[in-house]
């Protein structure tokens, strides 16, 4: 285990023991069993904020992992043809079970260098415009389903970004996705925050991993605004109702992909495969529908979202 989350501290001595035993060629069955039990204890009682922490785990399978495992002949496309190329958005064409698809995802970067290059997954105006461009390409030219992978702390906030029109750019992918005459499946794989996540989430079907979250604001940002105190993040997280279970109940999310006890990073391969299956299931249904009807349904679906008295 490279990195234990704060609420997993009780595992530390157990992992240490495990390594010790491995080193000494002793049997590990017993200790492994203990770890599983402890994990179960922890993961059966997760708070919303703990789920957010799992969603942000550095070893959690990320967009690049999903692309490498699920798509054949993936070829990355670059640039928005207007103002730049944002590495925090990876987009391109690939083959999914023999069908061409456009794949678009946010990327946080694996190495420190990549993380800086990708702004830790915060999307620049040129990133939003790249999404819109590839969506249009999929809809007009390749007539291919669109699959998005969402894992972003939101739109990048910086001098350069405000200058390049973050405020305008963010609506471009939203409009492009509404307009697209092809099936769209959005997959929330980690954190999905604010307009950054929204911009990739307009879809016919939203799939969400069990320990991911999708929120109007980060718990830290929300706490800073509402409590003027970042330390209230944990409290606010529960109020925000942002987990997969919450959103499935709210009818925002269509399908939850299960994760093992301990989170996706403890069994990447299995989770990625399950995600691929979930995408496949949704696409199979969507591909049967008429493309115009698809678009109309999508618009109607979003029009109905909201709870108010009348």
């Amino acid at each position, binding site marked *: 285990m490279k990195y234990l989350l704060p609420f997993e501290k009780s595992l530390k001595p157990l992992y240490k023991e495990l390594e010790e035993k491995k080193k000494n060629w002793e049997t590990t069955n017993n200790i492994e069993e203990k770890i599983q039990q402890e994990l179960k204890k922890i993961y059966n009682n997760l708070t919303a904020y703990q789920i957010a922490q799992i969603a942000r785990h550095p070893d959690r399978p990320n967009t690049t992992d999903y692309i490498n495992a699920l798509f054949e002949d993936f070829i990355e496309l670059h640039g928005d043809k207007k103002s730049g190329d944002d590495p925090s958005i990876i987009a391109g064409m690939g083959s999914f079970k023999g069908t061409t698809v456009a794949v678009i995802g946010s990327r946080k970067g694996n190495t420190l260098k990549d993380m800086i290059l990708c702004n830790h997954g915060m999307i620049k105006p040129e990133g939003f415009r790249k999404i819109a461009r590839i969506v249009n390409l999929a809809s007009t030219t390749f007539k291919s389903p669109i699959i998005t992978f969402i894992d972003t702390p939101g739109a990048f*906030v910086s001098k350069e970004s405000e200058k390049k029109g973050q*405020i305008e750019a963010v609506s471009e992918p939203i409009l492009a996705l509404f307009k697209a005459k092809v099936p769209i499946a959005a997959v929330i794989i980690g954190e999905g925050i604010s307009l950054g996540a929204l911009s990739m989430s307009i879809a016919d079907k939203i799939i969400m991993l069990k320990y991911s979250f999708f929120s109007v604001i980060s718990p830290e940002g929300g706490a800073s605004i509402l409590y003027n105190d970042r330390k209230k993040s944990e409290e606010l997280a529960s109020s925000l109702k942002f987990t997969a279970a919450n959103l499935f109940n709210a009818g925002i999310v269509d399908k939850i992909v299960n994760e093992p006890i301990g989170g996706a990073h403890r069994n990447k391969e299995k989770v990625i495969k399950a995600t691929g299956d979930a995408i496949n299931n949704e696409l199979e249904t969507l591909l049967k529908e008429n493309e115009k009807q698809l678009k109309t349904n999508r618009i109607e679906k979003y029009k109905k979202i909201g709870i108010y008295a009348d």
Partner: protein
Amino acid sequence: MDINIFRRKKKIVVSVLTEKKVKETPVRCQSCGNLIKYEDLKENLKVCPYCGYHFRMTISERINLIADSGTFSEIDTEIKTVDMLDFKDLLTYKERIKQTKKETGLDCAVITGKAKIGGFNTAVGVFAFEFIGGSLGSATGEKLTRLIEYAKKRKLPLIIVFSSGGERIQEGIYSLMQVAKTIQAVDSFKKSGGLFIPILTNPSYCGTAAIAMTGSIIIAEKGSSIGISGPRITKEVAKQNIPDKLKQAESLLQNGFLDIVVDRYLLKATIIQFLKHYNRRAI
């Protein structure tokens, strides 16, 4: 200038001056520091007579400013804000709605309706900053969407005055979704040939600013602060200092995102100019 920035930083959520609150005491201008009698300020469209600083207007002042006298009639009044998440921060959201309603008499952060402007029939929406910072909740999004569809159906020009801190956190994901819903409604209205003139006033942040940015012609009031994030979130997430100036209407104009930045006393005349041109369409 530095002093102003300092002052503004200290009171980030600037309240809206209402008669009830300040009729008796003079008001200090946030920008130049001069003391102004409330009556004088009101007379001057709530623009500081010393430095031209634009104070916030209440929703009724704003309607009076824009609509021809007595022509505004509200629609969709039955739509009301509710708490759907059992949300709680320093206050429960239920309590906050109750208090806000008591203070403002409003059920939602936006009032929508039809009005004449310079004699032209229009569909009008006005954000109430005094209703939880003009934030975008489900009721707000629904009223905006219905207004846009109302304008589309009746082929009316659509004028929306924005004054909003962004999404309503207390409504969680539902709030975020209102951004998508409203942007889509605007797009469909524009494609049908509709004219949408958003008026951005101080402040316009996050999702509501993004909605405004989809306007046909985008107008902002002088000195308005406009950006992807309000000051608190900016402080929370930005790795660098972002100068206040970059978020001012004047900078956005220069950077290509606004059509016109107007003094408040020219706002109505400017809107009428476009309504006139729209009305004289050849085809």
